[in-house]
């Protein structure tokens, strides 16, 4: 008897793959982590060198960090989509 994949098993495989994919997508969090830490360190150096322009430095640092955070947020959105909205289930045609 040939092995046949039933609808329940197919769904389980898709859900399993989505969960693993969501976890892997969040590896992208490494990049923003390193980048934002580097920016904060540089901002610390700048404040140490010029304490009088602290406000401007902090504001610039926050904007730069927000921009470099974008890739992390994209990966977070993909992980959330894979975990909770299950976009791949529709491809099964069940």
């Amino acid at each position, binding site marked *: 008897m040939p092995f046949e994949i039933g609808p329940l098993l197919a769904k389980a495989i898709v859900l399993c793959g989505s969960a693993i994919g969501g976890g892997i997508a969040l590896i992208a969090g490494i990049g923003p982590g390193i980048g934002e830490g580097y920016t904060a360190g540089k901002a610390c150096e700048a404040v140490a060198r010029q304490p009088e322009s602290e406000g401007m430095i902090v*504001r610039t640092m926050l*904007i730069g960090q927000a921009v470099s*955070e*974008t890739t992390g*947020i994209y990966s*977070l959105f993909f992980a*959330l989509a894979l975990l*909770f*909205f299950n976009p791949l289930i529709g491809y099964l045609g069940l």
Partner: protein
Amino acid sequence: MQVSIGGTVLYRLFNIITITDMVVVTWGIMLFLSILAYFGGRLFKNRPIDKPPEGIENVVEAIYDLISGFVVNSMGEHNKKYISYFGTLAAFLLVANLSGLVGFRPPTSDLHTTAALAILTFILVQKTAFRGGLLSYLKGFAEPFFPLLPLNIIGEVAAPFSLTFRLFGNLLSGYLIMTIVYTALVKIWPLFFLAQPLHFYFDVFAGVIQTLIFVSLSMAYITNKE
């Protein structure tokens, strides 16, 4: 656990317009801000200009000074007309982000709200870029030289997307983590107070920072196009 990008549907109007719980919370925030603005503005009606401010007038003036100083610092003296827009934007975003503190799901954790706000910024940016006429608008896409045209177009379209997803992702992840913590504590509800300090990070800190970032990035996009 079920999560949606757009809240739960409460009512469908003619099958086209859907009223979700996020929309109702947004209406509440609009009402709250409108009442504040009405009573704040009424203080300054029929008021002699040389009279020093007293009591609550100081607070209203301090808030206005904060916003106008921020706009003038980032965009320059000639862009004072943007004070009203960015003041409204900052007030709405701040109240919306902090509404998680009183038990609502923040409306900014709904993709539709953040997309609408990002589209507003996108329209303002395009309008600013268009000020020099059609020819210079089209020429702006071929800077610094022509082969970069597709990259420039992608960069132009990516800006509202990144604005949308940054706010949405931050607020939704904060809301999700708070929901997960509260769900985990349901069986041992006397320990609910353990989750309270997390509000300080996910609602207050992230909310204020994201408000600041959304407003400053909008300003930066607009001033870049001048």
